[in-house]
């Protein structure tokens, strides 16, 4: 049974990796949650309140290596052949298996009555993030072994993974500086529920012709897995005291804490053109509670039990086998410790350029801001533009480029469609809709719509939805 779960986990990690790009949401000004992607966004809202647990739900799935259909299609092929061809030898160590989800618990925003150029927002959301790269050499070793692979090095650095579940308490300020510039910043307090990190592994395992014996097995390892919070969750599960209690306690500032910041701006180049950028989750978490770290460091070459006469005659009862085991343990010690460690948040960068056109909505255009200008680019019926997204990953930055078109029908309906190129897909077309029914705001977004022709063959899919109560200026 346990093995079944392990296999499911393997496939889940392998084929349902997640990405984090929210390209439809970004700079979709009519959606309140877009403020979480750029604290310096231009907003025409007077206030918003997210419906708890329904205001900001997002889930994204993607795989840069293979799809569910590649393995589970009912095509009559042997699944073992498919795994060998499409995973073991079809995927590269750079193929990532990563993911995130986002669930808002509280999200409130309001414009300052004293200074209408300021917009404040605060809230709490829960977020899970994980990434693992395809552990190719481990998989080959596990599926096929080292036999008849003389001199082939199995690279231990292929194990590269990190992940965490965290509650984020945030407070943001959005300020119109002048007619052209809006800046924003959001302070974040992270309450980590659990985290794991194993990103700097080095070493190899290789079998070579032996100097004395037939074969020499060499292991050079410098590996570390750092965890925090997992042990208490496991204990709570084992002794039946309830995982929920542990998650709640650690999520409400009873676990590891960290701080971070989001910053962003919107700058109006001219009446029709704006540029925006934001940096999100520039922060870290200090993991110091319930920490368990596991290390394997050293190097050893063994050629089996070696008995060399006449030296071995000195003590005929020597336990050569145990000496060999002890020697390897000494050369490559496996150790555990509880040392605190810092985990950096996966920092994200967004940027965009946007060209608005059509007749600007009079009610929005005519709004008189205290700074003396109009609301700038709000209220145009059409917009086209491009967006850039970069996320910091263990193997370096990961980039996505997006082109978009947005159509607004007054304040009631806004539609946005995107075309995105990234490592998951070159045919990612997304669609988002925002609907305002009086004070009720609804939005829904879906990604990689072409993949809906056969969801199982899709290497990327996502959705976001939410409900808010809003009021306009």
């Amino acid at each position, binding site marked *: 049974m346990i093995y079944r779960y392990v296999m499911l986990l393997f496939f889940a990690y392998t084929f349902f990796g997640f990405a984090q790009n929210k390209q439809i949401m970004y700079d979709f000004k009519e959606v309140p949650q877009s403020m979480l992607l750029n604290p310096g966004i231009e907003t025409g809202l007077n206030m918003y309140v997210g419906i708890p647990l329904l205001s900001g739900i997002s889930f994204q799935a993607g795989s840069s290596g293979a799809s569910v259909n590649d393995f589970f*299609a009912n095509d009559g092929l042997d699944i073992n052949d498919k795994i060998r061809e499409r995973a073991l030898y079809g995927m590269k160590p750079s193929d990532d298996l990563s993911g995130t989800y986002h669930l808002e618990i509280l999200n409130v925003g309001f414009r300052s009555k004293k200074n209408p150029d300021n917009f404040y927002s605060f809230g709490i959301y829960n977020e899970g993030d994980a990434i693992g790269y395809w552990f190719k050499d481990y998989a080959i070793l596990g599926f096929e072994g080292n036999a008849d692979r003389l001199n082939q090095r199995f690279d231990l650095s292929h194990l590269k993974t990190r992940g965490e579940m965290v509650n984020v308490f945030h407070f943001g300020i959005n300020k119109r500086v002048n007619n052209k510039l809006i800046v924003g910043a959001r302070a974040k307090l992270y309450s980590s529920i659990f985290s794991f990190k194993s990103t700097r592994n080095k070493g190899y395992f290789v079998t070579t012709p032996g100097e004395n*014996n037939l074969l020499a097995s060499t292991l050079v390892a410098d590996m570390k897995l750092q965890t925090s919070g997992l042990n208490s969750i496991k204990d709570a599960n084992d002794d039946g005291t309830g995982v929920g209690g542990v998650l709640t306690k650690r999520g409400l500032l009873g676990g590891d804490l960290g701080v971070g910041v989001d910053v962003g701006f919107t700058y109006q180049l001219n009446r029709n053109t704006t540029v925006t950028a934001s940096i999100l989750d520039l922060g870290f978490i200090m993991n110091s509670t319930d920490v368990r770290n596991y290390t394997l460091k050293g190097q050893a070459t063994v050629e089996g039990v070696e008995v060399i*006469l006449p030296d071995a005659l000195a003590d005929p009862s020597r336990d050569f*086998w145990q000496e060999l085991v002890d020697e390897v343990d000494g050369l490559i010690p496996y150790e555990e410790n509880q040392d605190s460690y810092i985990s950096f948040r996966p920092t994200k960068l967004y940027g965009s350029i946007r060209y608005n056109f059509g007749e600007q909505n009079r009610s929005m255009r005519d709004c008189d801001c205290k700074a003396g200008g109009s609301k700038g680019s709000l209220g145009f019926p059409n917009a086209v533009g491009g967006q850039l997204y970069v996320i910091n990953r263990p193997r370096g930055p990961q980039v996505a480029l997006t082109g978009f078109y947005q159509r607004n029908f007054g304040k009631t309906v806004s539609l946005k469609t995107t075309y995105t190129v990234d490592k998951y897909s070159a045919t990612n077309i997304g669609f988002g809709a925002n609907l305002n029914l009086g004070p009720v705001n609804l939005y829904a977004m879906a990604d990689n719509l072409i993949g809906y022709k056969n969801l199982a*063959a899709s290497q990327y899919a996502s959705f976001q939805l939410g409900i808010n109560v809003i009021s306009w200026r």
Partner: protein
Amino acid sequence: MKIPHYLFGVLFLCFSFVSCIDEQDFNQTDDIIIEPTVEASIFYFETTEDLINTNPDPAGFYTNDFNFDAFSEDYISDNVLECTITYQLENTTSKPVSVIIELIDDGGNVLDTTVLNIAAESATTTDLDVLYGGTGKPLDIIRNTSALRLSAQNLGDNSSVSSNADPKLIFRSSAKLKIGVR
């Protein structure tokens, strides 16, 4: 321009209708076979010609039991599907030699015996593969092996000395195990 509110319903219904999924068979996970084959050296033995000459016992100039728990480790003994042990004997001494390898269980019982012979100052090695499991010998031999007994017998005289530099008898061995992970 005003758009009817039901537009969204229509749009998402459209997505629902156009989205589909080819037939998948997740029961294929039951057919996944993971049977890696691992190999490593297991035992190396070396002796000098001097030592052979100084032990004229006709029963053998050397015999000893060696603890060897690699095969009897729970994971290996529970999951091994096939095992091939490769033996190699090299002899640069001036006398023919016979080496006997016995696989022994916890109770000291001999489970299997392999004999290797090699001529004096042999230009070639004696190589032998012994298969356990499948079409070979019973796999339980491997599962229950917890010690090796190596015995070496001088089949020649006790006075000659090879003209080879540093004459030796060398025994090498490795094992290749197919493991049934799943």
